Every structure is written in structure tokens, then in C-alpha cells.
């Protein structure tokens, strides 16, 4: 019998030194992430503090921090929500097309193309939004104003350049489309064939099989992907800065040139020429954005967990 028994500690289970070091390092890396995140939070709070405590008149706009940031938060949420509403159904459709409708050979290359699009730098989307999308949307906006102008969203006057909130939302939608569809595609592919075959064996058509087995199973994945997309849409900077005509306060009018800015774009637009308290105000808006993303993540988690009983995971 040659089992070695290091005689030290009697009560702790025996663990090799290599194991202890390696797991320690791995845990250290995990903790490093906590530290980085805490660092970001602390930095934001410290730098935002002067703006939080400053008198209203010193904040840009002269009416206090709340009324400075409120339109920015509104613009951020509005553009991101538009993006999400447009992108999610399209992304699910793309994912379904690739996984269940396209011929197999085609499907693989389509998947590859969509992955690639997820990696196109955002500044390129910005260039394209200004140069191609915005001008091409002008006729649509004119049409919307003329025919659906009674809806406040399309009250107009239609922008003559097309650089509107709706355009910005669409650019964001296109940016996050590949992310959401890539993740949805993955979960759709992971739907156990067991479930798909259960539906087919009941005599379900393709769509019924998708409705019975694929979508319910993929639901939390779709939500996860959408939240990832939402996170990116909330924080997108350059594309919005380039595309959106920002000259206005809170408005739901989506097709005119007076739009609220978004937090991230506003930081990019104002930061270079800012000094002193203005910078603190900008960082305070960054803190608000950080809090929003945090909240969005919490929300996503609770949505995914709420019906955990019924989820495909168990």
C-alpha cells in the first residue's frame, strides 16, 4: 500500500498544493472583476459628487442636475426601447430562419455572416447611418407626417435630413440585431431534439413545433440576448453622436429634428470642450447610465427567474 498521507492537518480534507494555488489564482481573477467594477462605481460616485452637491445654477442649463440629466435619460431610454422593439422580433425571425427555415448549407454561412456583423465597429454604423440610412428615410418620414401625423409619435414636422430619434433607434436596432440573433440562434440550436420530436410526433407542423417546443425553451435565452442588446444600445456612443440631431428636450416626436440626446452621446459631444463642474455633471450622467444598466440587468434576471419552474432548464 503506497497511499501517501501527508500527516499535517487532520481535519481539513487533503488538498494538493497545486490545487490550492490554482484555485486561489482563479478565485483571485474572479475577485479582480469585483474590484474593477467597484473601482468603476467608486470613480463614478467620487467624480459625480461635486455635481450632485453643486447649486442648481452652476450645472449646465442652469436648472440643476435633475433637469440636466432627465432629458438625457429619456433620450437614452427612448432610443434603446425603439431599438429593442424593432430588433428583437427581427432577430428572432433571423434566428428562426437560420435554424429552421433556411437550407442547411446556406444556414451555416448565414450564421457566419451574422456573427461577422456583430463585430462591425460602431463608428462604421455611425458613418453609414449618416450617409445612407438617414437620407433614405426622409420620404418615409414625410409620408408618416402626412398620413399618421395625428399620432403624437409622428407629429412632425418631418426632418429634412432624416437624422431623427427614429433613425437613431433604427441604427441601434441594426447594431444590436446581430447580437440578439446570434444568441437566439444558439439557444434555438440547443433545444433538445427530444422536445422538438415530441411536438412533431404529435403531428405538429413546422410552425406549431416552433411554438410548442422551440420558443418556450428559448424564451430565457431570447430575453438574455435582448438584454445584452439593450445594454449595448443604452451605452452606444459614437453612432448616436454622429447620427442623431440633438436639440431639444423630452418629446415623443420621433421624426423631427429636435430630439433629446442620449447620455453616452452627450458625454462624447460635450466632454472635449468641458472643464470644471461641467465634467462632473457629465460624469454624474454617466453614473445615471451605470445605474440604469445595473437595473436593466436585475430586471432581466428577475424575468428569467420568475418562471424558472416552467423553464426548459430542468
Amino acid at each position, binding site marked *: 500500500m503506497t497511499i501517501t498521507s501527508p500527516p499535517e492537518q487532520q481535519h481539513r480534507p487533503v488538498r494538493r498544493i497545486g490545487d490550492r494555488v490554482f484555485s486561489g489564482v482563479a478565485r483571485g481573477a474572479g475577485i479582480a472583476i469585483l474590484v474593477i467594477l467597484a473601482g468603476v462605481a467608486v470613480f463614478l460616485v467620487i467624480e459625480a459628487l461635486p455635481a450632485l452637491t453643486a447649486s442648481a445654477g452652476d450645472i*449646465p442649463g442652469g436648472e440643476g442636475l435633475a433637469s440636466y440629466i432627465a432629458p438625457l435619460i429619456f433620450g437614452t431610454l427612448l432610443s434603446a426601447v425603439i431599438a429593442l422593439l424593432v430588433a428583437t422580433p427581427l432577430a428572432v425571425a433571423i434566428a428562426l430562419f437560420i435554424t429552421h427555415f433556411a437550407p442547411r448549407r446556406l444556414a451555416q454561412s448565414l450564421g457566419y455572416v451574422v456573427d461577422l456583423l456583430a463585430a462591425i465597429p460602431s463608428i462604421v454604423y455611425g458613418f453609414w447611418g*449618416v450617409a445612407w440610412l*438617414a*437620407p433614405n428615410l426622409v420620404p418615409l418620414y414625410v409620408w408618416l407626417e402626412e398620413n399618421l401625423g395625428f399620432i403624437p409619435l409622428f407629429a412632425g*414636422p418631418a*426632418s*429634412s*435630413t*432624416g*437624422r431623427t430619434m427614429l433613425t437613431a433607434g433604427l441604427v441601434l436596432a441594426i447594431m444590436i440585431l446581430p447580437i440578439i440573433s446570434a444568441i437566439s440562434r444558439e439557444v434555438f440550436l440547443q433545444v433538445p431534439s427530444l422536445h422538438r420530436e415530441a411536438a412533431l410526433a404529435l403531428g405538429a407542423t413546422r410552425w406549431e413545433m416552433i411554438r410548442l417546443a422551440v420558443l418556450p425553451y428559448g424564451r430565457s435565452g431570447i430575453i438574455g440576448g435582448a438584454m445584452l442588446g439593450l445594454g449595448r444600445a443604452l451605452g452606444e456612443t459614437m453612432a448616436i*453622436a*454622429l447620427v*442623431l*440631431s*440633438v*436639440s*431639444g*428636450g423630452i418629446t415623443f416626436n420621433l421624426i*423631427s*429634428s*429636435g430630439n433629446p*440626446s442620449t447620455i453616452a452621446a452627450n458625454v462624447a*459631444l*460635450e*466632454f*472635449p*470642450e*468641458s*472643464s470644471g463642474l461641467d465634467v462632473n455633471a457629465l460624469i454624474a450622467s454617466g453614473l445615471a447610465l451605470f445605474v440604469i444598466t445595473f437595473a436593466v440587468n436585475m430586471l432581466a434576471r428577475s424575468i428569467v427567474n420568475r418562471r424558472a419552474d416552467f423553464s426548459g432548464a430542468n
Partner: protein
Amino acid sequence: GASNEADTDSAGTGGGELSGDLVGAGASSQQAAMQGWQAGFTDVEPGVNLSYDPVGSGGGREQFLAGGTDFAGSDAALDDEELALAEERCGASGVFELPNYISPIAVVYNLEGVDELNLSPETLAGIFDQKITNWNDPAIAADNPDATLPDQGITPVNRSDESGTTENFVEYLAAAAGDAWPHEVSGDWPVSGGEAAQGTSGVVGAVEAGAGAIGYADLSQAGDLGVASIGVGEEFVAPSAETAAAVVENSEPLSGRGEYDFAIELNRDTTGSGEYPIVLVSYHVGCIEYEDQETADLVKAFMTYVVSEDGQQAAAEAAGSAPISDTLREQAQTAIDAITASA
């Protein structure tokens, strides 16, 4: 890759003894001109590695005052608070501020069938304040008796980012248009609801894209767009290098500043003939006394080049700016000659 830098090594014409890094940052308005200066200065002093980061005037001043850069480019002169900080940075002998870059800001428009447009200050203010909203408005017609103005809405385009161009333009409106322009002066556009675009190129792009649009941008970037003549006194003056330089020449220096601080108070409400008052003046800000000899020499050499006729010509070619007058050049040279090292 590095070959392109190598082959300028041998191409040096004059001077050529200096070497080292010279770092500047600041106004983006100077970026194009700086490109020209950089190119020309490399011919003179091939050993010097000059970099300029167009972070914006505010950032440029801040970085310079914090000691992060050797000089700043700024669309505005230092304010009192900053002058106090400058003493920490540069010592008692203070700073130089040289108006080395003069550029006319054009009012550009996109209106089919109208090749020439005259706008009085009040009309201009009314348009950008969104009080005048149609091209066939009587106020515009009064300025342009010969033109046939279409019945078309006006889309005023402004900068969405905080900018020196905006600040100068608004300053002009506030000074020249009187009650027609009720807003405060700052680098942020004060009127909401118009079309806003990022950067000069964004404004030009938006004006190009929108029929009936009007905006303000560096003259050199106006491209094919229509350029309005602005009412000065009894006449309408078109922007050009000459008319822009003229208004700077005739402006008063800011009082109560250091010996080598040549910041000027632009004569926005000028009525002088042939003076175009919507100009952007961008300064170079640096120390009179640097801590080490090398930096002092580099700054001195670079500023000498910038104010030289060659230098101003290079900027005119690269950025379409207006060369400074001989008077300004002589004045600047006195400051440059005073640059020393403290050690």
C-alpha cells in the same frame, strides 16, 4: 512603414539642429491648419516630433495648464481663473497668447434656385432663433430684393457638440443683432428644436442633405453650398480671407493682460467696409518661461514658423484660413523672442 518618416530626414532645408518631442493639444478648429504646419515644420526641423491632439479648446487649455502639454490651441483666450492657474504652470512671467489662426465662419445654405443670398444680422438672428421659418419671409425678401425666394420651410442647422465655432457665431449674433438675439453666449447652442449635427463636417453634411437648410461652418468646408453675404453697415460682405483678416486687424487687444498676451476683443459689430465680422480666431497659448531649454527652443522654433509667411501660407492651403497681417506677425514675434528657459 516608418520609411515615410525616414525620407523627410534628409529633406530638411533650414535650421535642422533641433530634435525632441513637442506636444500640443486643443482646439479642433486648428486641426487642419496644424496638419499643414506640421508638414511644413518637418521640412524646417526634421528632428522634431510634433504632435497635436484635437481634444477641443477646453481640454487643450486644461491639459496645458496641468502641464500635460507644451502648448495649447484654443478658440478662446484664457479667463481670469485660468490665468491664475497659468502662473503655477509657467511662473511669474506668464503666458503668451497669439491669435495665429483666423478663419471666416460662413453661413451656408441649401436652397435651389438661389445662388446669392444677403442676410442682415437681424434676419440671420431671426432665422437661427426660429422666428423666421420660411424662405419667403418678408425680412429675407427685404434683404434680397432681386431674388425669387421659394415658399419653403427653413431648417436651421447648428452644432450638437460644444464648439468654438458655435461660440464665435453666437457671440457675433449677440453683438450685432441686438434684441433679435436674446440668448446668452456659450459654446453650447442655446436654441432647441433645430437640426443639430456633430462637428463642422456634420453641419455641412446636414445642410447638404436637407433642402431649405441653413447652417454655419468654417468657410473652407463650405464646398458646393451657397454662402451668404452678411450685412455690415450699409453693405453685404462675403466671407473671404481678406475680409476676415481685416476685422481682426481692426480689433482692440484685451486690456489688463500680460506683456505678451495678445488676446483680442473682436470687433463684432463693426461697420467698417470690407470687414467680415463672423470670424473664428484661434490662439496658441504657451509659457514665456519653460523649465527646460529644449522645450523652450522647440516652442520658439515652432511658433516662429507658424507666424512666418510660409507658415501662414501652409495653413491657408491646408485649412483655408486667412493669413495674419504683418502687424500681427511683428507683434507675435516679440512674444516668441521672449521665450526662455528658467534653468
